[in-house]
Protein backbone atom coordinates (compact mmCIF):
# COMPACT_ATOMS: atom_id res chain seq x y z
CA UNK A 1 0.00 0.00 0.00
CA UNK A 2 1.65 3.22 -1.09
CA UNK A 3 1.72 6.29 1.09
CA UNK A 4 -0.49 8.00 -1.45
CA UNK A 5 -3.31 5.65 -0.58
CA UNK A 6 -3.23 6.91 2.95
CA UNK A 7 -4.12 10.42 1.91
CA UNK A 8 -7.45 10.82 3.63
CA UNK A 9 -7.54 14.53 3.07
CA UNK A 10 -9.06 13.79 -0.30
CA UNK A 11 -12.33 12.94 1.30
CA UNK A 12 -12.69 16.52 2.49
CA UNK A 13 -16.18 17.58 1.67
CA UNK A 14 -16.17 21.18 2.62
CA UNK A 15 -17.91 20.73 5.92
CA UNK A 16 -14.83 20.76 8.07
CA UNK A 17 -13.56 23.16 10.61
CA UNK A 18 -10.53 23.94 8.55
CA UNK A 19 -10.24 26.25 5.68
CA UNK A 20 -13.81 27.30 5.11
CA UNK A 21 -12.98 30.95 4.88
CA UNK A 22 -9.69 30.95 3.05
CA UNK A 23 -10.71 28.02 0.88
CA UNK A 24 -7.89 25.84 1.88
CA UNK A 25 -8.46 22.18 2.41
CA UNK A 26 -6.97 20.00 5.15
CA UNK A 27 -3.72 19.57 3.30
CA UNK A 28 -3.44 23.23 2.39
CA UNK A 29 -4.56 22.78 -1.21
CA UNK A 30 -5.99 25.96 -2.64
CA UNK A 31 -9.54 25.00 -3.49
CA UNK A 32 -10.48 28.08 -5.45
CA UNK A 33 -10.56 26.48 -8.89
CA UNK A 34 -12.50 23.48 -7.85
CA UNK A 35 -15.91 22.62 -9.33
CA UNK A 36 -17.98 22.17 -6.21
CA UNK A 37 -16.44 25.30 -4.86
CA UNK A 38 -17.25 27.56 -7.79
CA UNK A 39 -20.80 26.23 -7.98
CA UNK A 40 -22.34 28.80 -5.64
CA UNK A 41 -20.38 31.83 -6.70
CA UNK A 42 -20.85 31.23 -10.42
CA UNK A 43 -24.60 30.84 -9.96
CA UNK A 44 -24.62 33.99 -7.85
CA UNK A 45 -22.96 35.83 -10.73
CA UNK A 46 -25.42 34.44 -13.26
CA UNK A 47 -28.29 35.34 -10.96
CA UNK A 48 -27.15 38.96 -10.83
CA UNK A 49 -28.36 39.26 -14.40
CA UNK A 50 -30.89 36.47 -14.61
CA UNK A 51 -33.81 36.54 -12.20
CA UNK A 52 -34.79 32.97 -13.07
CA UNK A 53 -32.01 31.36 -11.03
CA UNK A 54 -32.98 29.74 -7.74
CA UNK A 55 -30.83 27.32 -5.73
CA UNK A 56 -31.95 24.50 -3.48
CA UNK A 57 -30.04 22.09 -1.31
CA UNK A 58 -30.68 19.46 1.34
CA UNK A 59 -28.46 20.34 4.33
CA UNK A 60 -25.30 20.31 2.20
CA UNK A 61 -24.88 24.02 1.44
CA UNK A 62 -21.36 23.92 2.85
CA UNK A 63 -20.36 20.86 0.93
CA UNK A 64 -21.52 22.16 -2.44
CA UNK A 65 -20.98 25.86 -1.71
CA UNK A 66 -24.56 26.79 -2.32
CA UNK A 67 -23.67 28.94 0.69
CA UNK A 68 -21.84 31.30 -1.64
CA UNK A 69 -25.05 31.76 -3.59
CA UNK A 70 -27.11 32.18 -0.43
CA UNK A 71 -24.80 34.93 0.77
CA UNK A 72 -25.59 37.04 -2.30
CA UNK A 73 -29.18 36.02 -3.03
CA UNK A 74 -30.67 34.81 0.25
CA UNK A 75 -34.22 35.24 -1.01
CA UNK A 76 -33.59 32.90 -3.93
CA UNK A 77 -32.01 30.14 -1.82
CA UNK A 78 -33.91 27.29 -0.19
CA UNK A 79 -32.33 24.78 2.18
CA UNK A 80 -34.93 22.03 2.47
CA UNK A 81 -33.13 20.12 5.21
CA UNK A 82 -32.35 16.42 4.90
CA UNK A 83 -35.23 15.73 2.51
CA UNK A 84 -33.99 15.09 -1.02
CA UNK A 85 -37.20 13.91 -2.64
CA UNK A 86 -39.03 16.96 -1.41
CA UNK A 87 -36.22 19.19 -2.66
CA UNK A 88 -36.38 17.83 -6.20
CA UNK A 89 -40.12 18.06 -6.52
CA UNK A 90 -40.17 21.54 -4.94
CA UNK A 91 -37.66 22.48 -7.64
CA UNK A 92 -40.04 21.11 -10.26
CA UNK A 93 -42.84 23.22 -8.81
CA UNK A 94 -40.65 26.31 -8.93
CA UNK A 95 -39.69 25.52 -12.52
CA UNK A 96 -43.35 25.37 -13.49
CA UNK A 97 -43.66 29.00 -12.38
CA UNK A 98 -40.83 30.21 -14.59
CA UNK A 99 -37.70 29.69 -12.54
CA UNK A 100 -34.58 27.70 -13.44
CA UNK A 101 -33.86 25.80 -10.22
CA UNK A 102 -30.53 24.19 -9.38
CA UNK A 103 -31.13 21.49 -6.76
CA UNK A 104 -27.90 20.11 -5.34
CA UNK A 105 -26.99 17.23 -3.05
CA UNK A 106 -24.59 14.28 -3.00
CA UNK A 107 -24.98 12.40 -6.29
CA UNK A 108 -26.01 9.18 -4.57
CA UNK A 109 -28.96 10.96 -2.98
CA UNK A 110 -29.80 13.16 -5.98
CA UNK A 111 -30.02 10.32 -8.49
CA UNK A 112 -30.95 7.35 -6.33
CA UNK A 113 -33.24 8.77 -3.66
CA UNK A 114 -34.64 11.36 -6.03
CA UNK A 115 -34.82 9.13 -9.11
CA UNK A 116 -38.57 8.93 -9.52
CA UNK A 117 -39.04 12.61 -8.71
CA UNK A 118 -36.40 13.39 -11.31
CA UNK A 119 -38.16 11.33 -13.96
CA UNK A 120 -41.80 12.03 -13.21
CA UNK A 121 -41.68 15.61 -11.98
CA UNK A 122 -38.74 17.06 -13.92
CA UNK A 123 -37.97 15.08 -17.10
CA UNK A 124 -41.44 14.04 -18.16
CA UNK A 125 -42.97 17.56 -17.94
CA UNK A 126 -39.79 18.88 -19.64
CA UNK A 127 -39.20 21.44 -16.92
CA UNK A 128 -35.87 23.25 -16.71
CA UNK A 129 -34.83 21.71 -13.39
CA UNK A 130 -31.08 21.16 -12.96
CA UNK A 131 -30.53 18.39 -10.46
CA UNK A 132 -26.91 18.65 -9.39
CA UNK A 133 -25.27 15.50 -8.01
CA UNK A 134 -21.92 16.34 -6.50
CA UNK A 135 -19.28 14.05 -4.93
CA UNK A 136 -20.22 11.48 -7.53
CA UNK A 137 -18.59 8.13 -8.16
CA UNK A 138 -16.32 6.93 -5.37
CA UNK A 139 -15.14 10.37 -4.42
CA UNK A 140 -16.53 10.04 -0.91
CA UNK A 141 -14.11 7.14 -0.48
CA UNK A 142 -14.39 5.64 2.96
CA UNK A 143 -17.92 6.91 3.45
CA UNK A 144 -18.84 3.67 1.71
CA UNK A 145 -21.61 2.42 -0.53
CA UNK A 146 -24.36 4.64 0.91
CA UNK A 147 -22.39 7.65 -0.29
CA UNK A 148 -21.05 6.26 -3.57
CA UNK A 149 -22.89 6.94 -6.80
CA UNK A 150 -21.70 4.42 -9.33
CA UNK A 151 -25.15 3.91 -10.78
CA UNK A 152 -26.22 7.48 -11.48
CA UNK A 153 -24.95 7.62 -15.07
CA UNK A 154 -26.80 4.42 -15.89
CA UNK A 155 -29.97 5.53 -14.15
CA UNK A 156 -30.15 9.02 -15.59
CA UNK A 157 -29.06 7.94 -19.08
CA UNK A 158 -32.12 5.74 -19.30
CA UNK A 159 -34.58 8.51 -18.47
CA UNK A 160 -36.13 10.12 -21.55
CA UNK A 161 -36.17 13.89 -21.88
CA UNK A 162 -33.28 14.23 -19.44
CA UNK A 163 -29.96 15.67 -20.53
CA UNK A 164 -27.04 14.24 -18.57
CA UNK A 165 -23.83 16.22 -18.24
CA UNK A 166 -20.70 15.15 -16.36
CA UNK A 167 -18.66 18.15 -15.37
CA UNK A 168 -14.91 18.05 -15.96
CA UNK A 169 -13.42 20.81 -13.82
CA UNK A 170 -14.11 24.28 -12.42
CA UNK A 171 -13.96 26.19 -15.68
CA UNK A 172 -16.04 23.57 -17.38
CA UNK A 173 -18.62 23.86 -14.61
CA UNK A 174 -18.81 27.59 -15.23
CA UNK A 175 -19.46 26.95 -18.91
CA UNK A 176 -22.05 24.26 -18.23
CA UNK A 177 -23.96 26.40 -15.74
CA UNK A 178 -24.14 29.27 -18.21
CA UNK A 179 -25.08 27.01 -21.13
CA UNK A 180 -27.78 25.37 -19.07
CA UNK A 181 -29.72 28.59 -18.56
CA UNK A 182 -31.44 28.44 -21.93
CA UNK A 183 -31.16 24.75 -22.62
CA UNK A 184 -34.58 23.14 -22.96
CA UNK A 185 -35.87 20.50 -20.53
CA UNK A 186 -34.49 18.91 -17.40
CA UNK A 187 -30.82 18.20 -16.77
CA UNK A 188 -28.78 16.05 -14.42
CA UNK A 189 -25.40 17.64 -13.75
CA UNK A 190 -22.86 15.20 -12.33
CA UNK A 191 -20.03 16.83 -10.41
CA UNK A 192 -16.93 15.31 -8.86
CA UNK A 193 -15.60 15.59 -5.39
CA UNK A 194 -14.84 19.26 -5.53
CA UNK A 195 -11.12 18.81 -5.85
CA UNK A 196 -10.90 17.88 -9.49
CA UNK A 197 -7.65 18.98 -11.08
CA UNK A 198 -7.74 21.45 -13.93
CA UNK A 199 -8.29 20.30 -17.50
CA UNK A 200 -9.46 23.63 -18.95
CA UNK A 201 -7.21 26.58 -18.12
CA UNK A 202 -9.99 28.96 -19.10
CA UNK A 203 -13.74 28.73 -19.45
CA UNK A 204 -14.21 26.59 -22.58
CA UNK A 205 -16.64 27.29 -25.40
CA UNK A 206 -19.09 24.45 -25.14
CA UNK A 207 -22.23 23.21 -26.75
CA UNK A 208 -24.25 20.74 -24.73
CA UNK A 209 -24.37 17.47 -26.67
CA UNK A 210 -21.10 18.14 -28.49
CA UNK A 211 -17.99 16.34 -27.27
CA UNK A 212 -14.64 18.12 -26.99
CA UNK A 213 -11.52 16.64 -28.55
CA UNK A 214 -8.64 17.34 -26.17
CA UNK A 215 -5.82 15.56 -27.95
CA UNK A 216 -5.47 13.91 -31.32
CA UNK A 217 -3.95 10.52 -31.93
CA UNK A 218 -4.15 7.67 -34.41
CA UNK A 219 -3.52 4.54 -32.35
CA UNK A 220 -6.59 4.49 -30.13
CA UNK A 221 -9.29 6.80 -28.75
CA UNK A 222 -10.09 7.27 -25.09
CA UNK A 223 -13.62 8.51 -24.54
CA UNK A 224 -13.81 9.81 -20.99
CA UNK A 225 -16.27 11.81 -18.94
CA UNK A 226 -16.24 13.86 -15.74
CA UNK A 227 -13.51 12.99 -13.26
CA UNK A 228 -11.83 10.51 -15.61
CA UNK A 229 -10.98 13.10 -18.26
CA UNK A 230 -8.00 14.44 -16.36
CA UNK A 231 -6.25 11.10 -15.72
CA UNK A 232 -7.09 9.97 -19.28
CA UNK A 233 -5.40 13.04 -20.72
CA UNK A 234 -2.43 12.59 -18.40
CA UNK A 235 -2.22 8.95 -19.46
CA UNK A 236 -2.30 9.91 -23.14
CA UNK A 237 0.56 12.36 -22.59
CA UNK A 238 2.58 9.70 -20.83
CA UNK A 239 1.91 7.23 -23.63
CA UNK A 240 2.91 9.79 -26.23
CA UNK A 241 6.35 9.96 -24.69
CA UNK A 242 6.50 6.22 -25.28
CA UNK A 243 5.48 6.56 -28.92
CA UNK A 244 1.82 5.64 -28.50
CA UNK A 245 -0.60 8.23 -29.90
CA UNK A 246 -3.93 8.27 -28.18
CA UNK A 247 -6.84 10.55 -29.00
CA UNK A 248 -8.73 11.88 -25.99
CA UNK A 249 -12.37 12.92 -26.12
CA UNK A 250 -14.19 14.69 -23.30
CA UNK A 251 -17.67 13.21 -23.72
CA UNK A 252 -19.14 15.51 -21.11
CA UNK A 253 -22.70 15.03 -22.33
CA UNK A 254 -23.45 11.36 -21.77
CA UNK A 255 -27.06 11.69 -22.84
CA UNK A 256 -27.60 12.42 -25.67
CA UNK A 257 -24.22 11.10 -26.87
CA UNK A 258 -22.27 12.82 -29.63
CA UNK A 259 -22.59 9.94 -32.08
CA UNK A 260 -20.54 11.51 -34.85
CA UNK A 261 -17.45 11.75 -32.66
CA UNK A 262 -17.82 8.12 -31.60
CA UNK A 263 -18.18 6.84 -35.16
CA UNK A 264 -15.29 8.93 -36.39
CA UNK A 265 -13.06 7.64 -33.59
CA UNK A 266 -13.77 4.04 -34.51
CA UNK A 267 -13.26 4.69 -38.21
CA UNK A 268 -10.01 6.63 -37.86
CA UNK A 269 -8.28 5.19 -34.79
CA UNK A 270 -9.65 1.67 -34.75
CA UNK A 271 -9.59 1.12 -31.01
CA UNK A 272 -11.89 2.64 -28.40
CA UNK A 273 -11.51 2.73 -24.64
CA UNK A 274 -14.26 4.32 -22.59
CA UNK A 275 -13.35 5.51 -19.10
CA UNK A 276 -15.85 6.46 -16.41
CA UNK A 277 -16.02 6.62 -12.63
CA UNK A 278 -19.06 4.45 -12.35
CA UNK A 279 -20.49 0.98 -12.75
CA UNK A 280 -19.82 -0.07 -16.35
CA UNK A 281 -23.32 -1.54 -16.59
CA UNK A 282 -25.32 0.86 -18.73
CA UNK A 283 -22.78 3.65 -18.32
CA UNK A 284 -20.91 5.76 -20.86
CA UNK A 285 -19.22 2.67 -22.30
CA UNK A 286 -22.53 0.95 -22.92
CA UNK A 287 -23.83 4.05 -24.67
CA UNK A 288 -20.77 4.18 -26.91
CA UNK A 289 -21.07 0.45 -27.67
CA UNK A 290 -24.71 0.92 -28.67
CA UNK A 291 -23.79 3.68 -31.11
CA UNK A 292 -21.08 1.57 -32.72
CA UNK A 293 -23.12 -1.58 -33.06
CA UNK A 294 -26.27 0.10 -34.25
CA UNK A 295 -24.28 1.78 -37.00
CA UNK A 296 -22.30 -1.38 -37.70
CA UNK A 297 -19.10 0.58 -37.32
CA UNK A 298 -17.03 -1.97 -35.45
CA UNK A 299 -13.85 -0.90 -33.71
CA UNK A 300 -10.82 -3.17 -33.92
CA UNK A 301 -10.43 -2.98 -30.16
CA UNK A 302 -12.99 -2.01 -27.56
CA UNK A 303 -13.05 -1.87 -23.79
CA UNK A 304 -15.38 -0.38 -21.20
CA UNK A 305 -13.27 0.72 -18.28
CA UNK A 306 -14.77 1.74 -14.97
CA UNK A 307 -16.00 -0.01 -11.87
CA UNK A 308 -17.09 -3.60 -12.41
CA UNK A 309 -20.57 -4.62 -11.32
CA UNK A 310 -19.76 -4.82 -7.62
CA UNK A 311 -19.94 -2.74 -4.46
CA UNK A 312 -16.53 -1.24 -3.89
CA UNK A 313 -14.45 -1.64 -0.73
CA UNK A 314 -14.01 1.06 1.85
CA UNK A 315 -10.98 3.23 1.29
CA UNK A 316 -9.69 6.71 0.61
CA UNK A 317 -10.48 7.93 -2.92
CA UNK A 318 -6.91 7.72 -4.21
CA UNK A 319 -6.67 4.14 -2.99
CA UNK A 320 -9.90 3.22 -4.72
CA UNK A 321 -8.85 4.86 -7.99
CA UNK A 322 -5.61 2.91 -7.93
CA UNK A 323 -7.45 -0.29 -7.03
CA UNK A 324 -9.75 0.07 -10.03
CA UNK A 325 -6.99 1.38 -12.31
CA UNK A 326 -8.82 4.67 -12.83
CA UNK A 327 -5.78 6.80 -12.07
CA UNK A 328 -3.22 7.83 -14.66
CA UNK A 329 -1.00 4.78 -14.15
CA UNK A 330 -3.99 2.49 -14.33
CA UNK A 331 -5.27 3.99 -17.56
CA UNK A 332 -1.80 3.78 -19.11
CA UNK A 333 -1.68 0.07 -18.26
CA UNK A 334 -5.16 -0.56 -19.66
CA UNK A 335 -4.27 1.12 -22.97
CA UNK A 336 -1.11 -0.97 -23.23
CA UNK A 337 -3.04 -4.14 -22.52
CA UNK A 338 -5.44 -3.29 -25.30
CA UNK A 339 -2.75 -2.50 -27.83
CA UNK A 340 -0.78 -5.65 -26.99
CA UNK A 341 -3.84 -7.81 -27.11
CA UNK A 342 -3.64 -8.96 -30.74
Amino acid at each position, binding site marked *: *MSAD*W*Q*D*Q*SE*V*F*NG*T*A*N*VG*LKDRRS*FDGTDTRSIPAFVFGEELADIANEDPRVVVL*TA*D*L*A*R*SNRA*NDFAAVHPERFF*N*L*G*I*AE*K*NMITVAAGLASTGFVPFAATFA*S*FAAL*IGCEQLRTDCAYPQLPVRVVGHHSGMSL*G*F*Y*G*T*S*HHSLEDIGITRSIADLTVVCVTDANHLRAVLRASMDYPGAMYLRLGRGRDPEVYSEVPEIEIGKAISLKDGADLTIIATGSTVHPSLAAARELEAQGINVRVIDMFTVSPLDEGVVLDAAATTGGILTVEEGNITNGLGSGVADVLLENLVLPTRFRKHGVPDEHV*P*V*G*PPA*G*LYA*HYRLDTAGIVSVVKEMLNDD
Partner: protein
Amino acid sequence: MNDTVLAGRRATMSVAELREKARFIRTETLRLTKIAGAGHYSSVFSCAELMAALYYDELRIDPTRPKHLARDRFVMGKGHAAIGLYPVLADLGYFAPSELDTFTRLGSPFGDHPDMKKIPGIDFSSGSLGHALSVGVGIALGGRLNGFDYRTWALLGDGELAEGQIWEAAMSASHYGLGKLVAVVDNNQLSIDGFTQDIMSTGPIDERFAAFGWQVHRVDGHDLNAVLKAFRSLDEADPSKPQCILADTVKGKGVARMELSTDWHVGNLVGEDYDAVMNELMEGVI
Protein backbone atom coordinates in the same frame (compact mmCIF):
# COMPACT_ATOMS: atom_id res chain seq x y z
CA MET B 1 -30.38 -20.76 21.07
CA ASN B 2 -34.00 -21.55 21.85
CA ASP B 3 -34.45 -18.89 24.51
CA THR B 4 -36.78 -16.17 23.35
CA VAL B 5 -35.10 -13.48 25.38
CA LEU B 6 -31.50 -12.86 26.35
CA ALA B 7 -30.56 -12.11 29.92
CA GLY B 8 -30.30 -8.42 30.75
CA ARG B 9 -27.11 -6.80 32.00
CA ARG B 10 -28.62 -3.85 33.80
CA ALA B 11 -26.70 -2.36 36.72
CA THR B 12 -23.58 -4.44 36.14
CA MET B 13 -21.77 -1.11 35.95
CA SER B 14 -22.00 1.89 38.20
CA VAL B 15 -22.95 5.27 36.82
CA ALA B 16 -19.36 6.39 37.39
CA GLU B 17 -18.14 3.49 35.28
CA LEU B 18 -20.64 4.32 32.56
CA ARG B 19 -19.39 7.90 32.63
CA GLU B 20 -15.89 6.55 31.98
CA LYS B 21 -17.25 4.60 29.03
CA ALA B 22 -18.77 7.76 27.59
CA ARG B 23 -15.37 9.41 27.92
CA PHE B 24 -13.79 6.37 26.24
CA ILE B 25 -16.23 6.75 23.32
CA ARG B 26 -15.16 10.38 22.90
CA THR B 27 -11.41 9.82 23.18
CA GLU B 28 -11.51 6.85 20.82
CA THR B 29 -13.36 9.03 18.31
CA LEU B 30 -10.46 11.49 18.48
CA ARG B 31 -7.93 8.71 17.97
CA LEU B 32 -9.72 7.09 15.04
CA THR B 33 -10.37 10.42 13.32
CA LYS B 34 -6.63 10.94 13.33
CA ILE B 35 -6.20 7.70 11.40
CA ALA B 36 -8.86 8.70 8.90
CA GLY B 37 -7.85 12.34 8.50
CA ALA B 38 -11.47 13.47 8.86
CA GLY B 39 -14.26 12.44 11.16
CA HIS B 40 -17.57 13.24 12.78
CA TYR B 41 -16.61 14.30 16.27
CA SER B 42 -19.60 16.32 17.32
CA SER B 43 -22.21 13.80 16.18
CA VAL B 44 -20.64 11.21 18.46
CA PHE B 45 -20.16 13.53 21.40
CA SER B 46 -23.88 14.28 21.63
CA CYS B 47 -24.79 10.61 21.93
CA ALA B 48 -21.86 9.28 23.97
CA GLU B 49 -23.92 8.93 27.16
CA LEU B 50 -26.80 7.36 25.22
CA MET B 51 -24.44 4.84 23.62
CA ALA B 52 -22.75 4.03 26.93
CA ALA B 53 -26.08 3.48 28.66
CA LEU B 54 -27.38 1.34 25.82
CA TYR B 55 -24.38 -0.88 25.23
CA TYR B 56 -23.07 -1.29 28.77
CA ASP B 57 -26.36 -1.45 30.61
CA GLU B 58 -29.57 -1.69 28.65
CA LEU B 59 -29.22 -3.79 25.51
CA ARG B 60 -29.79 -7.50 25.90
CA ILE B 61 -26.90 -8.71 23.80
CA ASP B 62 -24.20 -11.34 24.02
CA PRO B 63 -20.93 -10.37 22.31
CA THR B 64 -19.89 -14.03 22.22
CA ARG B 65 -23.02 -14.78 20.19
CA PRO B 66 -23.45 -11.72 17.96
CA LYS B 67 -26.14 -13.38 15.84
CA HIS B 68 -28.22 -14.69 18.76
CA LEU B 69 -31.80 -14.68 17.50
CA ALA B 70 -33.22 -13.31 20.73
CA ARG B 71 -30.84 -10.37 21.03
CA ASP B 72 -31.99 -6.79 21.15
CA ARG B 73 -31.35 -5.10 17.80
CA PHE B 74 -29.72 -1.71 17.41
CA VAL B 75 -29.80 0.30 14.19
CA MET B 76 -27.64 3.39 13.93
CA GLY B 77 -29.79 5.74 11.87
CA LYS B 78 -27.19 8.47 12.12
CA GLY B 79 -24.62 6.11 10.67
CA HIS B 80 -21.95 8.80 10.51
CA ALA B 81 -21.56 8.39 14.28
CA ALA B 82 -20.38 4.77 13.83
CA ILE B 83 -16.85 5.90 14.65
CA GLY B 84 -18.09 6.08 18.25
CA LEU B 85 -19.77 2.68 18.10
CA TYR B 86 -16.85 0.62 16.78
CA PRO B 87 -14.69 1.10 19.90
CA VAL B 88 -17.64 0.01 22.06
CA LEU B 89 -18.10 -3.18 20.06
CA ALA B 90 -14.37 -3.88 20.33
CA ASP B 91 -14.42 -3.16 24.06
CA LEU B 92 -17.30 -5.60 24.51
CA GLY B 93 -15.36 -8.31 22.68
CA TYR B 94 -17.07 -8.51 19.30
CA PHE B 95 -13.63 -8.24 17.68
CA ALA B 96 -10.07 -7.37 18.68
CA PRO B 97 -9.52 -3.68 19.46
CA SER B 98 -6.38 -3.73 17.30
CA GLU B 99 -8.60 -4.23 14.24
CA LEU B 100 -9.74 -0.65 14.68
CA ASP B 101 -6.35 0.55 13.54
CA THR B 102 -7.45 -0.24 9.98
CA PHE B 103 -10.27 2.32 10.27
CA THR B 104 -11.10 3.65 6.76
CA ARG B 105 -7.92 2.14 5.19
CA LEU B 106 -8.38 0.43 1.86
CA GLY B 107 -10.26 -2.82 2.37
CA SER B 108 -11.04 -2.20 6.06
CA PRO B 109 -14.34 -3.47 7.46
CA PHE B 110 -14.61 -0.13 9.27
CA GLY B 111 -15.77 2.70 7.06
CA ASP B 112 -17.35 5.95 8.06
CA HIS B 113 -20.71 4.18 8.16
CA PRO B 114 -21.44 0.79 9.75
CA ASP B 115 -21.60 -2.36 7.60
CA MET B 116 -23.56 -5.42 8.77
CA LYS B 117 -21.78 -7.70 6.28
CA LYS B 118 -18.34 -6.86 7.58
CA ILE B 119 -18.59 -6.08 11.30
CA PRO B 120 -19.79 -8.47 14.02
CA GLY B 121 -22.29 -6.68 16.23
CA ILE B 122 -23.70 -4.40 13.55
CA ASP B 123 -27.31 -5.42 13.02
CA PHE B 124 -27.97 -3.29 9.95
CA SER B 125 -25.91 -1.13 7.59
CA SER B 126 -26.64 2.58 7.40
CA GLY B 127 -25.29 5.84 6.04
CA SER B 128 -28.20 7.15 4.03
CA LEU B 129 -30.25 9.04 6.60
CA GLY B 130 -33.92 8.31 7.09
CA HIS B 131 -33.92 4.54 6.64
CA ALA B 132 -33.31 3.25 10.15
CA LEU B 133 -36.80 3.56 11.57
CA SER B 134 -38.22 1.56 8.66
CA VAL B 135 -35.53 -1.05 9.25
CA GLY B 136 -36.63 -1.09 12.86
CA VAL B 137 -40.27 -1.60 11.90
CA GLY B 138 -39.25 -4.60 9.80
CA ILE B 139 -37.08 -6.10 12.53
CA ALA B 140 -39.81 -5.57 15.11
CA LEU B 141 -42.43 -7.20 12.86
CA GLY B 142 -40.03 -10.10 12.27
CA GLY B 143 -39.47 -10.51 15.98
CA ARG B 144 -43.16 -10.64 16.65
CA LEU B 145 -43.76 -13.19 13.87
CA ASN B 146 -40.92 -15.33 15.16
CA GLY B 147 -42.11 -15.18 18.75
CA PHE B 148 -39.17 -13.28 20.21
CA ASP B 149 -39.40 -10.69 22.91
CA TYR B 150 -36.45 -8.53 21.90
CA ARG B 151 -36.50 -4.76 21.63
CA THR B 152 -35.47 -2.97 18.45
CA TRP B 153 -33.68 0.33 18.91
CA ALA B 154 -33.07 2.99 16.29
CA LEU B 155 -30.86 5.99 17.02
CA LEU B 156 -31.96 8.97 14.95
CA GLY B 157 -30.62 12.48 14.44
CA ASP B 158 -32.87 15.51 14.81
CA GLY B 159 -31.93 16.67 11.30
CA GLU B 160 -32.61 13.18 10.01
CA LEU B 161 -36.23 13.59 11.06
CA ALA B 162 -36.71 15.82 7.99
CA GLU B 163 -36.66 12.70 5.83
CA GLY B 164 -40.22 11.78 4.86
CA GLN B 165 -39.45 8.08 5.27
CA ILE B 166 -39.08 8.61 9.03
CA TRP B 167 -42.71 9.61 9.23
CA GLU B 168 -43.84 6.79 6.96
CA ALA B 169 -42.07 4.45 9.38
CA ALA B 170 -43.53 6.21 12.42
CA MET B 171 -47.01 5.80 10.98
CA SER B 172 -46.53 2.10 10.26
CA ALA B 173 -45.01 1.43 13.69
CA SER B 174 -48.08 2.67 15.52
CA HIS B 175 -50.38 1.11 12.94
CA TYR B 176 -48.86 -2.29 13.71
CA GLY B 177 -48.73 -1.56 17.44
CA LEU B 178 -45.00 -2.19 17.73
CA GLY B 179 -44.51 -1.68 21.45
CA LYS B 180 -41.04 -3.23 21.29
CA LEU B 181 -39.74 -0.62 18.87
CA VAL B 182 -37.81 2.27 20.41
CA ALA B 183 -36.72 5.38 18.54
CA VAL B 184 -33.99 7.24 20.41
CA VAL B 185 -33.74 10.77 19.03
CA ASP B 186 -30.39 12.46 19.61
CA ASN B 187 -31.86 15.95 19.68
CA ASN B 188 -28.53 17.77 19.50
CA GLN B 189 -30.12 20.81 17.82
CA LEU B 190 -27.92 20.93 14.74
CA SER B 191 -27.54 19.14 11.45
CA ILE B 192 -24.71 20.19 9.09
CA ASP B 193 -25.70 23.60 7.80
CA GLY B 194 -26.87 25.02 11.10
CA PHE B 195 -29.49 24.75 13.79
CA THR B 196 -32.19 22.33 12.72
CA GLN B 197 -34.75 24.89 13.78
CA ASP B 198 -33.35 27.39 11.25
CA ILE B 199 -32.62 24.99 8.38
CA MET B 200 -35.78 22.89 8.48
CA SER B 201 -37.65 22.71 11.72
CA THR B 202 -38.32 19.10 12.67
CA GLY B 203 -40.11 19.98 15.89
CA PRO B 204 -41.95 19.93 18.10
CA ILE B 205 -40.53 16.40 18.03
CA ASP B 206 -42.42 15.17 21.08
CA GLU B 207 -45.77 16.37 19.79
CA ARG B 208 -45.15 15.02 16.32
CA PHE B 209 -44.28 11.51 17.53
CA ALA B 210 -47.23 11.61 19.92
CA ALA B 211 -49.52 12.63 17.07
CA PHE B 212 -48.23 9.63 15.11
CA GLY B 213 -49.33 7.34 17.94
CA TRP B 214 -46.08 6.97 19.87
CA GLN B 215 -45.46 7.20 23.58
CA VAL B 216 -42.79 9.84 24.17
CA HIS B 217 -40.29 10.05 27.04
CA ARG B 218 -38.25 13.22 27.19
CA VAL B 219 -34.89 13.15 28.92
CA ASP B 220 -31.59 15.03 29.29
CA GLY B 221 -29.38 12.89 27.07
CA HIS B 222 -26.21 13.72 28.97
CA ASP B 223 -27.61 12.85 32.41
CA LEU B 224 -26.80 9.16 32.74
CA ASN B 225 -29.09 8.60 35.72
CA ALA B 226 -31.99 10.08 33.82
CA VAL B 227 -31.18 8.11 30.66
CA LEU B 228 -30.99 4.81 32.57
CA LYS B 229 -34.27 5.59 34.27
CA ALA B 230 -35.95 6.36 30.96
CA PHE B 231 -34.74 3.13 29.39
CA ARG B 232 -35.94 1.11 32.37
CA SER B 233 -39.30 2.83 32.38
CA LEU B 234 -39.97 1.21 29.01
CA ASP B 235 -40.78 -2.00 30.90
CA GLU B 236 -43.89 -0.29 32.23
CA ALA B 237 -44.78 1.54 29.02
CA ASP B 238 -47.94 1.00 26.98
CA PRO B 239 -47.15 -2.29 25.16
CA SER B 240 -49.34 -1.34 22.20
CA LYS B 241 -47.46 1.86 21.37
CA PRO B 242 -44.03 2.31 19.84
CA GLN B 243 -41.73 4.20 22.20
CA CYS B 244 -39.77 7.39 21.54
CA ILE B 245 -36.95 8.48 23.83
CA LEU B 246 -36.46 12.13 22.99
CA ALA B 247 -32.98 12.91 24.32
CA ASP B 248 -32.14 16.59 24.56
CA THR B 249 -28.43 16.84 23.86
CA VAL B 250 -25.73 19.24 22.76
CA LYS B 251 -23.90 18.62 19.49
CA GLY B 252 -20.18 18.43 20.34
CA LYS B 253 -20.82 17.98 24.09
CA GLY B 254 -17.66 17.86 26.17
CA VAL B 255 -15.42 19.99 23.98
CA ALA B 256 -15.99 23.72 24.34
CA ARG B 257 -15.01 24.69 20.83
CA MET B 258 -17.37 22.10 19.35
CA GLU B 259 -20.46 22.60 21.48
CA LEU B 260 -23.33 23.83 19.31
CA SER B 261 -20.83 24.91 16.67
CA THR B 262 -21.57 24.51 12.97
CA ASP B 263 -17.90 24.15 12.14
CA TRP B 264 -17.30 20.68 13.50
CA HIS B 265 -19.71 18.33 11.78
CA VAL B 266 -16.66 17.03 9.96
CA GLY B 267 -13.26 17.93 11.23
CA ASN B 268 -9.70 16.92 11.77
CA LEU B 269 -7.68 18.00 14.77
CA VAL B 270 -3.95 18.09 14.36
CA GLY B 271 -0.94 18.90 16.54
CA GLU B 272 -1.54 21.06 19.58
CA ASP B 273 -5.25 21.22 18.91
CA TYR B 274 -5.50 17.46 19.14
CA ASP B 275 -3.61 17.41 22.43
CA ALA B 276 -5.67 20.26 23.85
CA VAL B 277 -8.95 18.57 23.03
CA MET B 278 -7.71 15.22 24.35
CA ASN B 279 -6.77 16.93 27.62
CA GLU B 280 -10.08 18.66 27.78
CA LEU B 281 -11.85 15.32 27.47
CA MET B 282 -9.61 13.63 30.03
CA GLU B 283 -10.08 16.38 32.58
CA GLY B 284 -13.63 17.42 31.86
CA VAL B 285 -16.63 16.54 33.97
CA ILE B 286 -18.39 15.04 30.99
